């Protein structure tokens, strides 16, 4: 390196001084323990197949399974999960048939598509800007009317099943 000078005060140390903690460890945002495990992000851990696919890393192992990648899931189960729609054993063959049909449709559009720009709407989309006004709650929310249709309500909130187990 060329001759240089300067000063770099670590952010962690600044925070530690500001808070007056005894140890800098108290303010580390992403602490690792002695076995190099990160309690916050769970790293190191295995990655999901979808994450590898997103990064284009799926075919690196050829036919051999990539260490760490989750087992390949059935497509129908994957779609059921991402769209959060379960199905029963009576519906399964019908949905499988529908997915086969979808794959055939995909083949057909791939074969027939040219290099046109995709058209998502048959009319020109106009950017609409609302007139300036004082922001206010919807009258339906103010009067609590929006809760009338809810399957479960607690006070002024929609009640759902527990999010944390």
């Amino acid at each position: 390196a060329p001759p240089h000078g300067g000063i770099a005060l670590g952010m962690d140390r600044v925070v530690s001084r500001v808070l007056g903690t005894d140890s800098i460890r108290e303010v580390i945002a992403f602490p690792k323990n002695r076995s190099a495990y990160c309690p916050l992000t769970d790293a190191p851990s295995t990655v999901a197949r979808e994450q590898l696919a997103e990064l284009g890393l799926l075919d690196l192992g050829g036919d051999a399974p990539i260490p760490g990648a989750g087992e390949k899931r059935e497509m129908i189960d994957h779609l059921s999960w991402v769209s959060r729609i379960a199905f029963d054993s009576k519906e399964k063959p019908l949905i499988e048939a529908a997915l086969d049909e979808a794959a055939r449709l995909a083949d057909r559009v791939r074969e027939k598509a040219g290099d046109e720009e995709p058209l998502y709407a048959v009319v020109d989309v106009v950017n609409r800007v609302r007139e300036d006004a004082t922001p206010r709650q919807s009258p339906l929310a103010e009067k609590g009317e929006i809760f009338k249709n809810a399957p479960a309500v607690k006070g002024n909130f929609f009640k759902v099943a527990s999010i944390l187990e």
Partner: protein
Amino acid sequence: MPSDIFSYREPSPSSRGKDGALSGMKMALQPNMSVRGWPTEAGSMALRRFVALENATVVERLKEAGAILVGSTRMSELGFGLAGDLTASAVSEGHADCALITDTMGESLVAASIAGLWALKPTYGIISRLGLIGLVPSMECYGAVAMKPQDIAPVMKVIAGRDENDFSMPDLAIPDFRLDGKKGNTIKTIAVLKECLDLLSDDEAALFRSGLSRLEQAGFSLQEESMEEFGLFRTVHQVVGSVEASSSAGKYDGVRYGHRASAAKNWNEMYLKSRAESFGMPVKAYLFQGAYFQFENFDAFEDACRIRARLVKAMDDLFTRVDAIAIPTRRKKHPAEKALSVTQVYDAFLLTLAASVTGLPALQVPGVMSDGDFDSGLQLVGRRLSDPHLLSAGARLRR
């Protein structure tokens, strides 16, 4: 107050005034069109016990014009296809002068054809969709069904037009729906598409050809035209439609409204189970098809949209040579009211998909393509915003 045809009947139907454009006109709606205080379940468990809190813009305009809203009719799940839909019967059995039917793939046209009625599926984008619960936003619109075209025009005149609260509306000049004899004469040349005839069975084609002579007798000139890719309307509609449906149905989570499955252990299970019970067949299969294109094969969705661009252009080109296209409305061997799978639904609506994919107006005319036993209906597809011209051309045809 449920009945056979209606899922809800207004106990005391009334008109807001005597001077409105629709004063005294009885209108039937589907239960996916929001009327404040009416049960609005859209034929689906996904909206079980849902009561609309606000009026749809269309409903507000109908009331303002003095129309009498008599009730909402039984409909297919979320308006996909016509299985279980009895909306047109409300008109044919005299309960209403005009009924509105959500049109995503030609439902208003086909329902009218089955009941021997007139229907107009208007140009996409001229009617506010605020308060309309639908599945395929880039295609759906309100279709109007009535005994005669003179009942459709005034309704369209009232409900069409810019709505400041519907941000998806384009800036279109709204056509003038005041019918007069002279206007209809702008439609002179009507195309018959070779590729469309190829899709028909022999007896369907024979019925269609015999009906075409009625067009010539009424003074229209017929022109054989070709549109090589006519068969692709179905493919494009299904790919784009299923993706939009899967996306639109995402809001049915059983949290703010709709059906909630009991005894879910956690949040995710609540979604999975509630949505499993919310959708029936064929809607559920359709949503899975959409999910396939969204999550497994997005290129296919984009490809379908590329083809859609080409099909819209091909239609525009065709309309530089002709004023309208004649197509039968429905098929004899593929009854829409009995279509219970996605494939059967698309088989039944094969002939009305072109207008949906391109957003063009289409008119269903009864009594022209009939052998006395079966009326396939005549469908006239016109240029964008030519809706009133179609109506008066249809009236001229039946005069």
